[in-house]
C-alpha cells in the first residue's frame, strides 16, 4: 500500500534518512523502532508529505505522493507532540476536523466516548495536560475510519487505563484489516500491537521482518529481550567491521 524507495532526507549536512526502502502492505501492523533521533518521525512525516524528501520515491497505492494531497484522506495520523490552535476549545477542534473532511459521512467517535472527552468539550487547548492532549490526538486520528493509521508514540504520557483503551482500539482496527504503523519505545506494547518490526538506526533500516521471525532468530520469547539482543548483535557486527 505504501512503497518507499531509496528515500533520503538531509537537514543541511545531517543525513536523517539514508536510502530507506520499505514496502508496507495493508492488513499488517508495523512497529517502527529505533533510538531517539534515528529518523522515525522524519520517515513518518515524509509519508505524510510534511517533510519533503531530498531524493527517493514514496508511493501510496501505486501513485507518487510528491505534490499530491488527496491520498491523505486515507490516513489517520497521531503526532508525537500534538500541536493545536491554542485558543480553540476541544469541541471546536473536533467540529473543525469534521468540517474539513466533510466527505466522510459517518465518524468514529468511540475514543471520544471512551476517554470521556465530551465532558471537557469547552476546555481550551492551552489548558490541557500532556495526557489529555494525547487523548485528543488519538481521538482525531481514529475519527474518519481511515484505512491507514500512523501513530507516533501513541501511548507516551497516557495513564494506564487510557493506554488499555487505546490498545484495545488499535487491536480492533488491526482486526479490521487496516495498515497500522506505530512508533514507540515501550516494546511490551508493540509486542501486543504489531506483527512486523522495522528497526531504524542512524537513518538506515537495519531490520525489517515479522516479530515472530525476530524472536526465532534471537531465541527469545519477549520482544524487548529480542530487540536488545538484536541491537547487541548489530553493535558486535559493527565493532568487528570497524576493526577490519
Amino acid at each position, binding site marked *: 500500500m505504501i512503497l518507499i524507495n531509496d528515500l533520503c532526507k538531509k*537537514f543541511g549536512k545531517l543525513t536523517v534518512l539514508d536510502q530507506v526502502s520499505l514496502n508496507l502492505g495493508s492488513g499488517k501492523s508495523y512497529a517502527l523502532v529505533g533510538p531517539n533521533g534515528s529518523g522515525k518521525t522524519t520517515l513518518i*512525516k515524509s509519508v505524510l*508529505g*510534511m517533510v519533503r524528501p531530498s531524493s527517493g520515491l514514496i508511493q501510496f497505492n501505486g501513485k507518487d505522493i510528491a505534490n499530491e*494531497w488527496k491520498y491523505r484522506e486515507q490516513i489517520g495520523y497521531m503526532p508525537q507532540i500534538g500541536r*493545536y490552535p491554542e485558543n480553540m476549545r476541544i469541541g471546536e477542534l473536533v467540529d473543525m476536523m469534521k*468540517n*474539513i473532511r466533510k466527505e466522510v459521512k459517518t465518524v468514529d467517535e468511540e475514543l471520544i466516548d471512551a476517554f470521556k472527552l465530551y465532558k471537557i468539550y469547552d476546555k481550551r487547548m492551552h489548558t490541557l495536560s500532556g495526557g489529555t492532549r494525547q487523548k485528543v490526538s488519538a481521538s482525531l486520528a481514529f475519527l474518519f475510519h481511515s484505512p491507514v493509521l500512523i501513530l507516533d508514540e501513541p501511548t507516551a504520557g497516557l495513564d494506564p487505563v487510557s493506554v488499555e483503551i487505546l490498545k484495545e482500539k488499535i487491536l480492533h482496527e488491526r482486526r479490521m484489516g487496516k495498515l497500522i504503523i506505530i512508533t514507540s519505545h515501550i516494546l511490551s506494547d508493540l509486542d501486543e500491537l504489531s506483527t512486523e518490526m522495522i528497526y531504524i538506526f542512524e537513518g538506515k533500516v537495519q531490520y525489517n521482518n515479522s516479530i515472530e521471525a525476530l524472536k526465532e532468530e534471537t531465541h527469545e520469547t519477549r520482544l524487548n529481550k529480542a530487540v536488545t539482543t538484536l541491537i547487541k548483535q548489530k553493535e558486535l557486527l559493527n565493532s568487528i567491521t570497524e576493526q577490519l
Partner: protein
Amino acid sequence: MTRVIRYIFNDILRTRFILFYTGFLLLSTFALFQLDSDFGKIVLSLLNIVLMVVPLVSVIFTTIHFFSSYEFIELMLAQPINRRVIFLSEYLAVASSLCMAYLIGVGVPFIMFGAGESVISLLVTGVFLTLVFVSLAFLSSVLTRDKSKAIGIALLFWFYFSLIYDGFVLWIIYSFSDYPLEKVTLTLIAFNPVDLARIIMLLQLDISALMGYTGAFYKNFFGSNMGILFSSGILFLWAIIPIYIALRIFNKKDL
C-alpha cells in the same frame, strides 16, 4: 478553501487586533475632519498617515499571525488539503481582514462627511499597500523558522521602503544632478511600492508640483490617467511577486 479561510478569519477576529486597528484609523480620520475643513488637505494629511501606518501594521500583524497559526498550518498539513490552498487561504484571510479594517476605518468618516474622487483613490492605494506589505511579510515569514528573525526581516522591508530608499534616491539625484535623470528616477520609483502609492495620490490630487521636478516630469510623461494606471500596474506586481515566491518556498518547506 472557503472552509479553511473561515477558520483563519475567526481566529483573526478573536485576537481583537483588527478591531483596534479599525478604531485607530476611525479616530484619526475623524480627528482630521475636526481640525480642517478643506477636503484636499484632509486627504493629504491622511495620505501621510496611511503611507507610514498601513505598511507597518500590515507587516507586523502578518508575521505575528503567521507564527501564531503555525500549529493550525501543521494540523491542516496532515489533512487531505493542498499545501497551496492552506497558504493562499492564510494570505487571503489576513489580507482581506486588514483591507476591511482599513476601508471601514478610513471610508466610514468620508461617507458620513461626503466623499470625493480623491477619497476613492486614497482607499484603493491603501488597499494596494496592504496587499503589498502582507505579501512581503509572508515572504519574510517563510524565509526563516524563527519568529523574531521573521519580524526583523519584515520590519527591515518597511524601514527600507519607507525611509532608506527615499534617502538613496535623493542621494542619486543630488550626486548626478549634472545629468538628465528623469527616466532614471522614474525607474527607481517603480522599485518602491510606497513611492508608487504616493505618486498615484499626488497625481490624483493634482498637486504633483509639490513633488518637485520628478512629479512634474511624471505628469508630463504619462498624463494623469496613464500615470495612475502605470503605477497601479506596478503596485499590483509588487503584491503578486513576493507572495508567489513565498508560495514556492512554502511548498518545499519541511514542517
